[in-house]
């Protein structure tokens, strides 16, 4: 299990990096490498050129300003999980990041790498749909922005051009009284989830407002469960409401069979986890 040959470039600016990508057909960006290198070790990926972006400055910051949380593309999952700033302003992001793989993977794997890899069972694409967000991109035309819920368009597929580099993500901070939960189901701790659900909602005078429910690992990308959200809006945050809404989750997703579970089981998990996430969000709010 040794990787194939490739040429290696380590530019120190985004423009230089983009130029290398433009000049080399099939070149791939290398960030933390935690998804790409295993594929190369299995020889399932053979990019002729790797563009290591780790020495490009200004992509390793976590910043909170102007009502948004900005995370640079090279920030590691562990840095997010351990960030007191993230825990303070957007704890769902820190909690989800802590569920990614294992410590040694989180120490190397990057936010930008995960978003660009676009695994349907990855946490970051789900978070970008759960929280209003914008993806920062640098391409041949310079910097640009992609709405967070439009980045991941399919299995291992984004809307980015092949010469674009994902440089960061900005999350709009939700109202401070919104309540949230992120739950996932794995066979073993740290495995890719068989299903995961993120919820974020407000509770105003015992009625649910602005619910957002996102399902992960249950389709070719994470998906907003609009039908579930509609069943929640304006309803009291009771178990009955949650169960009725969660039942719809099984119908809106489109999971596949694999060695770990059938699609049918995953649909079932969609409902179970949605109900659990909604309860957890409400109960967390009540504890405040």
């Amino acid at each position, binding site marked *: 299990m*040794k*990787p194939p040959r490739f040429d290696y470039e380590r530019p120190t600016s985004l423009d230089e990096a983009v130029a290398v990508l433009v000049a080399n057909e099939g070149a791939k960006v*290398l960030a933390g490498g935690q998804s790409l290198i295993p594929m190369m070790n299995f020889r399932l990926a053979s990019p002729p050129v790797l563009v290591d972006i780790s020495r490009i400055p200004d992509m390793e910051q976590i910043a909170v300003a102007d009502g948004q949380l900005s995370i640079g593309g090279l920030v590691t999952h562990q840095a997010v999980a351990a960030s007191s700033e993230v825990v303070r302003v957007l704890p769902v992001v820190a909690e989800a990041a802590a569920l990614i793989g294992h410590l040694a*993977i989180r*120490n*190397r794997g990057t936010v930008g790498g995960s978003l660009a890899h676009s695994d349907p069972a990855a946490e970051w694409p789900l978070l970008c749909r759960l929280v209003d967000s914008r993806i920062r991109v640098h391409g041949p035309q310079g910097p640009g922005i992609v709405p967070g819920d439009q980045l991941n368009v399919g299995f291992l597929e984004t809307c980015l051009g092949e010469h674009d580099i994902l440089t960061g993500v900005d999350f709009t901070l939700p109202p401070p009284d919104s309540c949230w939960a992120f739950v996932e189901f794995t066979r073993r701790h740290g495995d890719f989830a068989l299903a995961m659900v993120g919820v974020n909602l407000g509770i105003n005078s015992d009625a649910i407002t602005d619910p957002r429910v996102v399902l992960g690992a249950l389709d070719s990308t994470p998906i907003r469960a609009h039908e579930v959200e509609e069943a929640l809006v304006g309803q009291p945050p009771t178990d009955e409401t949650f169960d009725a809404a969660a039942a719809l989750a099984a119908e809106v997703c489109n999971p596949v069979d694999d060695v770990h579970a059938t699609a049918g089981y995953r649909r079932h998990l969609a409902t179970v986890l949605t109900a659990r996430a909604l309860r957890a969000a409400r109960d967390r709010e009540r504890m405040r």
Partner: protein
Amino acid sequence: MTLPISVTVNGTVYQSEVTPRLLLVDFLRENLRLVGTNAGCEHGVCGTCTVLLDGNSVRSCLMFTVQADRTEIITVEGLADGDELHPMQRAFTANHALQCGFCTPGMMISAIDVVGRYPDVDEAELREHLSGNICRCTGYHNIIVAVQEAAVELKGGQ
């Protein structure tokens, strides 16, 4: 194509020329002959190849050596201070936390990172944090005992 690198391993600076595809685990084992770091799966799951890179535990099978340029690496060979074993090593042998020994270097490295970050880690948390390292011999029982013991010592020593 080869590239020059400079990497500090266990306190020694190594200047070398490597092909881009050379995995860090193979550089350590084959080029530097630091064979204590084992390659157990070469796809980032088993944890046997874990080393400390600038203080963070990482999979050396999921890094190209060129990515380690200008970094500082600690491998199992760098844990002891001469004849004096690291507290984690002492706790592993005192508690029979190793059998065939193949996972042991990576397990100790991961454990050192974990107890460094979470000095007051309890058993349940520790089991979660070490779940990226597979051991096939010990059933983890004595590893957990050993790491908890070492955590106490390492905390007291700070």
